[in-house]
């Protein structure tokens, strides 16, 4: 049984680099920059990456589909919508935590709507269909909100926010993100054996004594907490939840339960590494502003998807 213990020193190294690297250069910075800007940024990247990683692994296990991604359930879209509404109505200008708080509200409403649509006894396909519907609704409303943007600065800022990032987040943002993300992780970590049983199908799993409907509900809840809070605070960072479990599956075996914790760790490492690349690119390329984190994860993620696809083809 391969373990991920070896990954922890690597993660520690990434954290160290993250404290030393920033848009103002490489090296030990002013204390206020170190503790109030770089530390929260590092913590948030770890929380968000870990939350997305484990959500992806749990969803793929529950839906028996290696293409499932936390965004599939539409909750990240609703979180983004909540944040955009706060932004658009200028609530964020008066009270900074309004943005993530409205994002969390959006995620909560999305989760409630999802479970309502999926019915009293959700099955995998029901959940997917409900999620797609919710995603589509959120995307349409987001486009509408962009069209109503008060001015071009707002439009540009909204667009960039939706592409995802952890820049200029404070300790207050981490305090808002940590409880729902950590809770979501805890909910999902305990579902290992249930997800293993689902390998044999929902019917057989239920004869093994696994409560299938409540397992699916808990997966939706855990994803809503972890991925929803992640989206509320950092916008649309994608690909992590999709790629990380697939990478690990090729290396650690395909039992869904064994992939949960490693996906959390690798997701955290991957997102932090991507954010380091974001900061590095500002230092070495003539850019006016940091490229959005979601763009980096997509650029890194796309080749990995090709590798995974080729592996399936064999």
């Amino acid at each position, binding site marked *: 049984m391969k373990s991920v213990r070896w990954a922890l020193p690597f993660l520690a190294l990434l954290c160290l680099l993250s404290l030393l690297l*920033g*848009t*103002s250069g490489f090296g030990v*910075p*002013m204390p*206020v*920059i170190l503790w*109030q*800007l770089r530390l929260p940024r590092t913590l948030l990247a770890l929380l968000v990456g870990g939350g997305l990683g484990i959500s992806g692994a749990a969803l793929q296990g529950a839906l028996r589909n290696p293409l499932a991604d936390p965004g599939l359930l539409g909750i990240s879209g609703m979180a983004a919508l909540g944040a955009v509404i706060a*932004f658009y109505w*200028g609530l*964020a*200008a008066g009270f*900074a935590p309004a*943005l993530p708080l409205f994002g969390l509200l959006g995620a909560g409403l999305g989760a409630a709507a999802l479970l309502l649509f999926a019915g009293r006894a959700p099955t995998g396909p029901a959940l997917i269909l409900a999620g797609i519907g919710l995603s589509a609704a959120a995307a349409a409303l987001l486009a509408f909100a962009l069209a109503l943007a*008060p*001015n071009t*600065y*707002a439009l*540009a*800022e909204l667009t960039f926010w939706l592409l995802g990032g952890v*820049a*200029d*987040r*404070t*300790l*207050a943002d981490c305090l808002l993100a940590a409880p729902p993300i950590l809770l979501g992780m805890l909910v999902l970590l305990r579902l290992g054996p249930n997800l293993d049983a689902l390998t044999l199908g929902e019917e057989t799993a239920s004869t093994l004594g696994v409560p299938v409907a409540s397992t699916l509900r808990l997966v939706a809840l855990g994803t809503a907490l972890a991925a929803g809070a992640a989206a509320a605070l950092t916008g649309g960072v994608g690909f992590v939840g999709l790629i990380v479990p697939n990478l690990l599956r090729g290396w650690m075996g395909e039992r869904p339960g064994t992939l949960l914790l490693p996906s959390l760790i690798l997701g955290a490492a991957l997102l932090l590494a991507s954010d380091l690349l974001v900061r590095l690119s*500002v230092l070495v390329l003539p*850019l*006016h*502003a*940091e490229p959005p984190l979601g763009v980096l994860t997509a650029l890194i993620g796309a080749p990995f998807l090709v590798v995974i696809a080729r592996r399936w083809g064999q």
Partner: protein
Amino acid sequence: MKRAALAFLLLLLTRPQAEASLRVVSLNLCTDQMLLLLAPGAAVGLSPLARDPSLSAMASEAAHVPLVAPSAEMVLRLHPDLVLTEPYGATATVAALHALGLKVVVLDDPTNFPQIRATIITLATLLDARARGAALIAAMDRTLAGLEHPADPRTAIVLEPRGLTAGPHSLAGSVLAAAGYRDAARSVWISLEGLIAHPPDLLVLPEAPGFPSLATRLLDDPALAVIARRPVPASWMICGTPFAAAAAQMIDR
């Protein structure tokens, strides 16, 4: 033509530099220009758009001031006493700087001349440049007083690329009113059909060197050839600054 603009620039040359010990960073195109007008010596950082002549009327004056990206780290390294910006554009950065105890002032962009005056007074007080602020307002008021206000104003539309107009309650509307015209734009977008069916008496076209002028393609239609046109520097119509008065003057001739 650029009489009003010259008047403002003369102020910069004849008056001594403002408070050199105050360190101010601007994160927004509009506050960039106001900062350079009121207290150019205090500017230690401007937004990345500050040196773009198609956007900023003070582009050349921004040449000696460093540009700073909207990043809390970059701003902190300049050790500013004051950060100026407008809503949107750097919300997370502003929140972070605020949380770190910096003095951040977020001003709404003025869309009419009374608001421009109020903004000048507010900024002049913050920047300890009251005298300069008063002089700017006086110059602006002189320019505006010299403009005609016919009893039955003709109609005009400010036409931006792709058929966009600035909309009824915007800076463009105020500029047209000051120039003695009635803003005929009823909504934010106008079609070719709309222009032909209800042609205004004057088309005001913001333009700049190197700016993509898609608006002119719209206007190449022969049906619109009869409408009078007046080009205006684009940078005078973007932000609520005293340069808007210069724009009104240019339209009024």
